[in-house]
């Protein structure tokens, strides 16, 4: 019974969302608003169950770590945002999170996004015995990355052999990259579409097995 009601509810909401493909209608809007409400409610429950209760309330109630009062007070300062006279206090938790977050992220960003990427780009173009498409690939990696970087460099006009030609090659590389990302996104969405259609035809209508 639980399964049957569950499948019917899920199927009706699936159809309600797809009805938007025809035109916007009250059923779609109901489902749209419902998902916002349930998602927020779900986030509240999960935040309590996975974070606030086990990592704050429980250790404090057991007297294990009184220093946890500091993040609790900082967190509660967010609420002052709703009271204009003391709204300035909400800046403290934001400052704490942003400042420390940026400090923690700085060396890791430098490593992961700058140094490792540069290191991985500086590769030998020609490797003896490698097939031609691998060699061509290495050339594309080295010069393509450089060309795309030139395209993003706006401090100099894109003219001349280095900046002009570099930025022209760069935009080609970027477009191919965007095309690949676009293709991947399409495949991902089509997979989801197949999943939903399969659910409707198999679990709900039992037309396919």
């Amino acid at each position, binding site marked *: 019974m639980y399964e049957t009601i569950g499948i019917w509810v899920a199927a009706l*909401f699936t159809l309600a969302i797809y009805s938007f493909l025809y035109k916007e209608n009250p059923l779609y809007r109901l489902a749209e608003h419902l998902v916002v409400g349930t998602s927020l409610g779900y986030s509240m429950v999960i935040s309590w169950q996975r974070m606030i209760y086990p990592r704050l309330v429980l250790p404090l109630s057991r007297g294990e770590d009184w220093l946890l009062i500091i993040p609790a007070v900082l967190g509660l300062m967010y609420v002052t945002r709703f009271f204009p006279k003391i709204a300035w206090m909400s800046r403290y938790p934001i400052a704490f999170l942003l400042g420390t977050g*940026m400090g923690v992220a700085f060396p890791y960003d430098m490593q992961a996004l700058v140094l490792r990427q540069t290191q991985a780009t500086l590769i030998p173009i020609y490797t003896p015995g490698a097939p031609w498409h691998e060699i061509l690939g290495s050339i594309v990696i080295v010069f393509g990355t450089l060309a795309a970087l030139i395209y993003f460099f706006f401090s100099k006009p894109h003219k001349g052999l280095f900046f002009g030609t570099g930025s022209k090659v760069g935009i080609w*590389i970027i477009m191919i*990259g965007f095309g690949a990302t676009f293709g991947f996104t399409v495949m991902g969405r089509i997979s989801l579409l197949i999943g939903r259609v399969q659910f409707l035809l198999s679990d709900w209508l039992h037309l396919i097995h």
Partner: protein
Amino acid sequence: MIALVGGVIMIIQYFVPHRISQDVFNYYTSWGPIVATFALILGVGSVTRVHMYKIRMKSTNWAYSLAVILPMFLMPVFALLPGSLLGGTDGPGFFDFMYSRVQIPIQATMFSMLAFYIASAAFRAFRAKSLLATVLLVAAVFVMLAQVPIGDLAGRWLPNTGQWILRFPNLAAKRAIELGVGFGMLATSLKIIFGVERGWLGGAGE
């Protein structure tokens, strides 16, 4: 001042592998997510305020606001309810039902619907008739056909070309973007830590 001190301390602790600096890092990793979680109160409060105002004023389509407010506050109540919908104490309750039979199907369907809009976006991009738009679409077609069995029907060259595009030009573009993002993040981090960028203060209390 808080951002400056916090930021500088966290940068220094990375370069000083001492027990105290490790303790500072451990405290941050346990405190940070707790403080961040409290921000949810702002989100819930803000959504409640907006929709309660609509309901009170009976503004256009106010009834839909009930569909936001009611499940938002009922979900925590459902989570507290003991017992299962199957009878007994074990098994899924109302909370699980709302999550797996309402939230997940709606979200999955919404994302799957993007397949249709992406197809229409592709059509518009083709109509742009520029060489670069065509390059984008050709790359996308090769990558898509490389992922599905039908691509093999045209010969191995098609999936191989798709894979080659993914491994080399795509990687070059991604790497250039990541380097740009990396430099941007480093600059933004320093601007926030040293107080040059203060947009995040949001004007509260002004």
